Structure formats: structure tokens, C-alpha cells
């Protein structure tokens, strides 16, 4: 079988002095997979994610993202990933079109490609008539969808979503997940953190971090059966109850 792993992590560790934020996590993520990255606040998710995005250098362990090394090839990594954070990440006082053009610009897309991408994106999101309105005037759900579309504008291999649906109503969340599936079907790997356990069920596989270690990693169905739990909620509680670190 051909190696289709886009994230390969081996004993990846990050220490801040004596504090081990991320403790020897080992896992792989395959192409087109939706990978849920769960854990209570302070469990080390953010630190792990920052290492995977090339923002911070690991203390030890190995990892490659889209085939590039997290120690030496961060520039290459940044070109091949997309990122969307919990905080809404577009510019409020720029129009929809200007935001798209700006992010296309800093990812180095050609003018022509930005133009065609913009047209395609506006069409797909049904935002054509809003193209020249300030993003501030859009409802939150649309902003979130636009934000996601902008994160995958440069056709990254992997998109990292850091609690992308915080503060969004269930209907919009559902629509948002439709977009995630669509992206995954087109071959983009989705790496997503969330606190919503119903969302965790949408993932192909999920991992749960506790106190810096990756405690479990499996499909939602397998996790539920091995923990004799009816829902992901219960699985999460069973694991997180043992945590020593809090906020």
C-alpha cells in the first residue's frame, strides 16, 4: 500500500523548563482523513498544534507534515497547510473580496488564480452580492464559513481548525461540517480540535489528550465500545476525570 500519511508524529515532546506540555505523542494522520484532536483545556492540544504548524520547535521526537520536517522545513510546512482559529480570523474592516485577495496575496497566489478563486468561492458560498461589503456586517455563521474557505484557498494538503465552531448555532455548525466533509472528500486532510462531543462523532478518528499524553486514538465507534459508553461525552468524562492539570 502506498504511504498516504500526511502527518507522521513520533514521540513528539515539548518542554517548557520542567513542565512537559506535550509528552511523547505518537500518531499518524492519513490523506483525506478528518482527525479529531480532543482534550480538556491545558491538556497540551495547543502546544502540539503549534509544533505541527511549524510555529514552535519541538524539544524532542520526530514529526513530518506533508512530508516536511518540523525542525528544518517550517517554511515548506507553512506553504502546505491552512489554519483557522477559534477566534474569528478575517479582517473585519476589509470587504469579503479584499479579505480573499489579501490571503491569496500573502500565500503568493498569482493574480489570475486569485481572481478565479474569488469568483468560485463567492459563487459557492452564495456571497456574490455581499462581495463588496465589510466582513463586520456579515452574520457570524457566514464569517465562519468564509474563514474556512479562506483557510483552504491555497489548496493546502492539511487544514488545521482550532475550535472552529465556538459560539456558532447548531444549524450553522451542521453546515460548517458539511464544508469540512467536502474539503476532506477533495483530498484535504482536516485536523480539528473541538469541545463539542457531537462534533467529535463526525470525525473519522479521534484522539484524546490528557495531561500532555495522547491517551487514546481510535474511531468514535471503537472508543465507545471499548469504554462501554453510550456517547463520546461519557468516553471523554472517563478520561478527563483522571487529569491532574486544569486551567
Amino acid at each position, binding site marked *: 500500500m502506498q504511504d498516504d500519511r500526511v502527518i507522521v508524529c513520533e514521540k513528539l515532546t515539548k518542554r517548557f523548563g520542567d513542565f512537559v506540555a506535550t509528552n511523547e505523542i505518537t500518531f499518524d494522520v492519513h490523506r483525506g482523513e478528518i482527525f479529531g484532536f480532543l482534550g480538556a483545556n491545558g491538556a497540551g492540544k495547543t502546544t502540539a498544534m503549534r509544533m505541527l*504548524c*511549524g*510555529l*514552535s*520547535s519541538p524539544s524532542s521526537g520526530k514529526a513530518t507534515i506533508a512530508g516536511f520536517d518540523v525542525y528544518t522545513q517550517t*517554511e515548506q510546512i*507553512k*506553504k502546505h*497547510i491552512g*489554519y*483557522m*482559529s*477559534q*477566534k*474569528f*480570523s*478575517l*479582517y*473585519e*474592516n*476589509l470587504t469579503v473580496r*479584499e479579505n480573499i*485577495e*489579501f*490571503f*491569496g*496575496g*500573502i*500565500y*503568493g497566489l498569482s493574480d489570475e488564480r486569485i481572481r478565479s478563486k474569488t469568483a468560485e468561492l463567492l459563487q459557492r458560498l452564495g456571497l456574490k452580492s455581499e462581495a463588496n461589503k465589510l466582513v463586520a456586517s456579515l452574520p457570524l455563521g457566514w464569517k465562519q464559513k468564509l474563514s474556512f474557505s479562506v483557510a483552504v484557498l491555497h489548496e493546502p494538503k492539511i487544514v*488545521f481548525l482550532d475550535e472552529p465552531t465556538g459560539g456558532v448555532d447548531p444549524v450553522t455548525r451542521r453546515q460548517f461540517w458539511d464544508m469540512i466533509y467536502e474539503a476532506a472528500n477533495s483530498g484535504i486532510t482536516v485536523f480539528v480540535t473541538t469541545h463539542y462531543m457531537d462534533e467529535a462523532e463526525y470525525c473519522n478518528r479521534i484522539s484524546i489528550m490528557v495531561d500532555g499524553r495522547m491517551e487514546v486514538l481510535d474511531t468514535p465507534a471503537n472508543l465507545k465500545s471499548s469504554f462501554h459508553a453510550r456517547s463520546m461525552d461519557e468516553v471523554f468524562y472517563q478520561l478527563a476525570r483522571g487529569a491532574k492539570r486544569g486551567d
Partner: protein
Amino acid sequence: MKQFLAFVRKEFYHVLRDRRTLLILFGMPIAQILIFGFALTNEVKDSEILVVDYAKDNASQELLTKIGSSRYFNIRQAALSHNEILSTFRKGKIKAVVVFPAHFNEDLLHQNKAQVQIITDASDVNTANMVTNYLSSIIVDYQNQINANLEIPYRITPEVRMLYNPQLKGAHGFVPGVMALVLLLVSVMMTAISIVREKETGTMEILLVSPFKPVLVIFAKAFPYLALSLVNVTAILLLSVFVLDLPVKGSVALLFAESTLFIITCLALGIFISIKTSSQQVAMLISLMGMLLPTIMFSGFLFPIENMPLPLQVISNIVPSKWFYIIVKSIMIKGLGLAALWRETLILLGMTLFLLLVSLKSFKIRLQ
């Protein structure tokens, strides 16, 4: 490069869409210059001057008529002693006293030179200066007029005495002062706020994850403020030359070069503040307290540094605006060139490099 341009364009959108930013950027300098400036120009029209004519001869009468016919002065004549002159000044109505010595005409005819004394109230420095300048130019005019057909020219020397403030501290200082203030506000505060804002809204994270280099993020954010500050310098100079009649005596190119240097100093400071803070309010407070106050206190713009206690004089040396103020004042008012100002320029350059290095370094640390 294309990425950089995309970024700079975005920054301009930010600035041009924020009405408050625009107001600070362009409203403030214009308002300050006009407020300072018109306190100065209005008073010179119809200034009361007192003439003490001990000569009462042809020449003194001719010159007096010439002074009186200009629209700047209303002449009152009186024969007063020196002490009486002083007491009239204290009443505050008289802007200047012109004294013709006895034998004014004779001196002129026999020795080819004569003196006129101009005494002004220099507690109002700007007015005193304007009045003296106008009077002197009228006298020169008169001198040229009587010299028209002569082989050996007559010389009338105005002997100027500034009462109460002989060294004219603070004279004409407001344009360089306002320039330092405005550039500081725009470059330090605006830059700091605009970078911190990206941190607050979370967009900084997005930028750092993008392949756009972090150092370029900082430069791209600072660049529009450099451009806008230069627009401000231009506006202030145009206002001061065309509205306030304060010419730039030295090289305009040098003035712009020095301003650019000072702007970069300020930008480096703004960047440094933005790296060390994480909320817009804190960034603004630090910029105001940490930069604006020292500029007002220590640049010599409002309070003469020479009169301060020694420790404060020493402190004033680390305030970049002090050096910029000296440089601009020397170029604008004294017409000095780089040859005379290399020391101040070097100090400012040193400060700039130091600040740039420190900010870039702490920026790198922050990324880890």
C-alpha cells in the same frame, strides 16, 4: 515582493477606513499648527509702537513716515527717558520702542552710518521677533532708497534689544516641536496599536502560520505609517511656509532625510511596544506616557532644557525627540546643514539601530 504589496495594501485599507485614525493622522497636525501659528501671526497687525525721536531731523522723519505707512504699526510719539520706556512696556500695550539718537541725520551724512535702537518685549518671543524683523526690513528698505544715487553708501544699523528674554528661548520652536509630537504619535502609537490589534483579534496567529515571513509582517505593518508620516511632514511644512510665513532656511531634502530617520526611530519604538504588550489600551498608554510626555517635557519644545536641574538634563539626552527637535530647528530656523548636525544625526541613528535590533530580537524570542 508581491506578498509584501498585498500586505501593505491591506494596511492602507485599515488606516483609511478608520475615521478616528484619519482624524488623528491629519486633523491633529493641521489643528496644532494653526492653533500655534495664529496665536503668532494675528498680533503683528496694527502693533502699537512707541517712537522716541531725539534727532527730529529729515532722515528720522522720513524713516518714521515709512514705518507709519506700513499696515503693521501704529506709531505714537513721546519723549521719554529710559526708565519711562520700561514702565510703558510693563503696561503691556506697546510691542516695541524705536529710538532715534540725536544727530541721526548728521551721523548718516558725515560718518556714512547711523544707528536706530529697537527695543522689544521678548516675553512674547514670537511677536518680538516678528516686529523686529518687520522694522528691520523697513529700515533696510529706506537705506536702499536713499542710497540709490550715491557712490559711498549710507548704512543704518538697527540695534536690537530684547527685553526680558534676551536669548529668545522657545522662539519659532513650535513648528519643529509640533513635528516631533505628530510624528511620535503617528509612528509610535499608531504602529503599536495596529500590531497589537492583530494580536487581539487573533489574525496575528493566522499571519504567523502563513508562509509570509514574521519579520516582513512587522515591516509591512510599519511601512504605511512611514508613508503617512512623510505626508504629515509635508503638510506641516507647507502650512508653516504658506500659512504662517515661516520659511525653511536650510535644505528641504536634508529636513526630509532627518525626518525619515526620526520616523524610523519612532516605528522601531512602536514595534517594540507592540511586542511587549498584548492589548491596545496598554499599548496606547505606554506610547502616551512613555513617549509623548517625555517629548513635551524634555525636547526643549516647551521648557528650556538649560534651566532644568542637572539630573533632568541628563535624562533628556535619551529622549530621541530632543535630538530631532534640535536638528529640525537648526535646519528650519538657522539654516544649518549636515556639517553642523552630524553629531545629533549620529546619535539619532544610533538610537534607531539600537531600537530596531532590540525589537527584532525580542520579536524572535516571542516566536519561540
